[in-house]
């Protein structure tokens, strides 16, 4: 159960399991405490400020006094930032690791040693990482404050030619 909570925190829990987990959280304080503690640790890693220990208790009390909102509605899936996983030729995804984000819809004829096929047609290959190229590309965009893909920013020497 706690491990499921950890997956929920990362947005990696199967949607069908969420209701069950939330119900469990109401019965077991250790789950709620874990949610609290893990976010505290995560926030500390990101250097967010501390709050007084009673912050959530005070807030829960205030929230309890609020009239319960009941306004169920279908949330629009935002059209901004939607992932488009349409390869123009499927083979592109075969060539690179990190390919889950550049998804292939069909599995092609590739020598078995090169490719590890997983379920639901996502293909992961043991080959150079797309992320390395993305990191190198975005590093040259000039926006030092938006640097991401830092895990692949292990660049060796860089010389301007």
């Amino acid at each position, binding site marked *: 159960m*706690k*491990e499921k909570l950890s*997956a*929920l925190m*990362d*947005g*990696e829990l199967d*949607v069908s399991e*969420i209701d069950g987990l*939330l119900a469990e*959280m*109401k019965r077991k*304080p250790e789950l*709620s*405490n*874990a*949610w*609290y*503690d*893990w*976010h*505290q*640790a995560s*926030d*500390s*890693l*990101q250097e967010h*400020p*501390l*709050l*007084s*220990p009673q*912050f*959530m*208790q005070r*807030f*829960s009390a*205030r*929230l*309890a006094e609020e009239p*319960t*909102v009941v*306004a*169920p*509605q279908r*949330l*629009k899936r*935002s059209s*901004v930032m939607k*992932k488009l996983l349409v390869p123009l030729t499927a083979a592109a995804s075969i060539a690179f*690791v990190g*390919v*889950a*984000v550049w998804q292939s819809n069909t599995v092609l004829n590739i020598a078995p040693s090169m490719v590890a096929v997983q379920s639901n047609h*996502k293909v*992961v290959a043991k080959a150079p*990482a797309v*992320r390395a190229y993305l990191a190198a590309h975005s590093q040259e965009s000039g926006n030092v404050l938006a640097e991401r893909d*830092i*895990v692949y920013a292990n660049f060796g020497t860089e010389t301007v030619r």
Partner: protein
Amino acid sequence: MIQRTDRDIDQELVVRAQAGDKRAFELLVVKYQRRVARLLSRLIRDQNEIEDVSQESFIKAYRALPSFRGESAFYTWLYRIAINTAKNHLSTLGRRPQLLADYEDEEGESLDAAAQIPDYHTPETELSNRQIVSTVNAVVDELPSELRTAITLREMEGLSYEDIAAVMNCPIGTVRSRIFRAREAIADKLRPLLDIVGRDKRW
């Protein structure tokens, strides 16, 4: 940084909060409490005030839930409410802002001089923050390497389980378990430090 996976989980919790589940909303508050406080700390100096205004922002967000339709990320919407709450708070403190017609926002509220307050950088809060930060970092460094890699890729680099599995060359289930175990290990070491209210109670 807010990741794609944040949007997914936030949507799930917001939907349930909108359906009447207050606890789901509280989970979101636990998640964003410090981020909102940090945002407000650039506009408000006093720590107590920051916490009060943060709480007020969350309450306002709760009341406004029926109008949230998921067009933007929850955090973006929450952030706007927090900024507005801070603005109103500062203007009720009696500051006479320079009112110029141009500076009214969509609700007709006037943009006051909130953003013109000099940035205060209180050494005391900075110090206690740094202590916690260095403790967490130390605990992470002491983890067995596969746990450390998994939690770092997840928390610092924001990679999905799938991407982490590719980097670490292991199944996704293993990633999930390693991240969970790392979290538990860190929380165990961190708890005594944080003076958390009695463990039998929630939060």
